[in-house]
């Protein structure tokens, strides 16, 4: 609704970014309440410690992957801003590939963690938090794919890249949530 959105030219943030910020704050409350539930359950005496995951190689790999993908998402926006559309496409493809590898590794982790969702409370916490983060990664991948196709079709330029930037913002968010979850579920 660009004809509507332009009535307030003094505003610095685009409408899409305002909307995204509010959505992400709402999402953060969702993850925060999940994490609080986890901490509250953990606090109880009968927490089954033996279920805590000791292996770190897989989640560490995933952390590195997501951090790199956040950098490439950032480069994708910057390249577009300076008019290098093909470079931006390359960065977008790299981000997507890293995201897909992350999802593949996560599926492997889910099937090889030796836990079930009905394995006492920890299993529920692990799969719920990781599962919802995974859904966000998938949503991000769909978003990035649409942006990639639109970049190829020439929808974006050095003056018109807001949607790509919003996609990158979402991807930074997914990465930040992952780091929180990694610390909470593997390190604590």
């Amino acid at each position, binding site marked *: *609704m660009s*004809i*509507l*959105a332009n*009535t*307030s030219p003094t*505003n610095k943030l685009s*409408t899409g970014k*305002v*909307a995204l910020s*509010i*959505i992400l*704050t*709402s*999402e953060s*409350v*969702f993850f925060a*309440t*999940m994490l*609080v*539930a986890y901490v*509250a*359950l953990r606090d*109880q005496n*009968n*927490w*089954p410690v033996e279920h805590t995951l000791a292996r770190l190689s897989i989640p560490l790999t995933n952390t590195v992957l997501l951090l790199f993908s956040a950098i490439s998402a950032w480069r994708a926006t910057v390249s577009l801003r300076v008019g290098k559309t093909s470079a931006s496409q390359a960065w977008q493809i790299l981000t997507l590939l890293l995201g897909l590898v992350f999802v593949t590794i996560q599926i492997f982790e889910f099937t090889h963690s030796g836990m079930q*969702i*009905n394995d*006492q*409370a*920890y*299993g*529920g*916490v692990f*799969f*719920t938090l990781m599962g919802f983060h995974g859904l966000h990664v998938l949503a991000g991948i769909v978003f990035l794919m649409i942006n990639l196709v639109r970049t190829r079709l020439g929808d974006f330029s050095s003056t018109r890249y807001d949607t790509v930037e919003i996609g990158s913002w979402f991807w930074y968010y997914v990465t930040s949530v992952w780091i929180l979850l990694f610390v909470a579920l593997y390190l604590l």
Partner: protein
Amino acid sequence: MTVQAQNSSRIQGAAQRGFLSWVMTVDHKRIGIMYLLSAALFFLVGGLEALLMRIQLAQPESKFLTPDMYNQIFTMHGTTMIFLAVMPLAAGFGNYLIPLMIGARDMVYPKLNALSYWTFLFGGLFMYSSFFFGGAPNDGWFSYAPLTEKLYSPSHGMDFWIMGILLLGFATTIGSINFIVTIIQLRAPGMTLTRLPLFVWTMFVTSFLAVFSLPSLTTAVLLLFLDRELGAHFYNVAQGGSALLWQHLFWFFGHPEVYILILPAMGIVSEVIPVFSGKPLFGYKAVVFSAIGIGFLGFTVWAHHMFATGMPSTTLLFFAADSFLIGVPTGVKIFAWLATMWKGKLRFETPMLFSIGFVALFLIGGLDGIHLAVVPVDWQITDTYYVVAHIHYVLFGGAIFGILSGVYYWFPKMSGRRLDEGLGKWHFWLMFIGMNLVFMPMHILGIEGMPRRIYTYGAGRGWEIWNFIETIGAIIIAAGMLVFIVNFFVSLRKEATNKSDPWDANTLEWKTASPPPAYNFEEIPVVRGLRPLWDEKHPELADWKAAE
């Protein structure tokens, strides 16, 4: 400007009339009206459920309803009134009025707006379909786990409740995001935040409350769903879960929810009282800050719903003291409304009557709330009819009276006709008297120890007379609502006068035609003060001139 107007009229011109034009619409005014009508139907259903409960409780040992039916009905009554009546009624007014009040042509995301409405409608219908599939949910509107675990609630009613809440939560979340972004991005030139009409302000705060509190409910019901359907153990103490987790998650949503229900009504009253007092609102900024204050404090008091769960005494102390604090911004508002009326040229037409009714009844409900915030008192009367009295004074005497005030006030804008004044006065007095007959005796019953949610009671406890009076009151309320329904249809059949400003009001929605064209304003208005329409009607006395 004209290109835009032509564009929107061409888009709208495709389908102006007929059933499909309403199904396909993305016009905020039509979506608002559909919200209002659907929510009104749910409100009537919820009211009938209340009437059934009152008939059952009119006499001791009554066999009118079975215990199981009674459980389903009180659960659906609470769920309906909160999620399917009051919240969408406020959303309906918000949809209709926010773009008009801020001088915009539509919401920022019109399609998202339509999605929000249809999700709400089908979420509500979905929940009600449970009556045909093995019984409605029956664990009360706050569905405490572990009582709602599969072991204790094996019927599918609970699953319908969970899925319905997820749908309704989704609808409210996207609707609220739409309100927030619209208010931030689409204000007319000069419509600064300090000139925003109070209804827009309260919807702004309400939307933030919804966006930040609903995720907690989503978490709560998702975890319950995983427990019930996939065998997880979040609320199962034997397997490392927690029995209090639900209550914390639920009330972290549930208390802001109370303000989600009442703030829009406060906004309506803050629009109506100045117009019918012929004065600007007293202490505009104080009222705005008190709304923000209520919204903020609303997030910090949730555990006062849980005083009887054996929390540590320091926790009790904190939440009790914090709950008292909410009385301060609420008091500021009540003083502002009274001061607005003070020495005003008062007109006691129906919108004003309902607004004054709101102030009076909400005050009683608020004082009840302070009683309940006192921990030792709460221990005595928690889960008794005292709590039922409190919630209905704030949500029925408060939210519903405020919303009815809005219905009488904005009906001429939506339809081009005023509701009949004589029938309106009957409606108000029947509702006001009936309301007090039902809910005032509940204080006494609560102190006498009658628990809420019991399907019947034994004779000889001294509860019979009060219960009987309450049932009479409920019938009077029902009569009042019948008068309203008659009024609604009779007034719609009258010839439209299409007066753009029938109440001599101050805000921008009265500047355009009644009902407004699809594009709202031919020219986007420029705002120079708190009362843009007053400024236009009285250029010599304009607010901005007085300020200079």
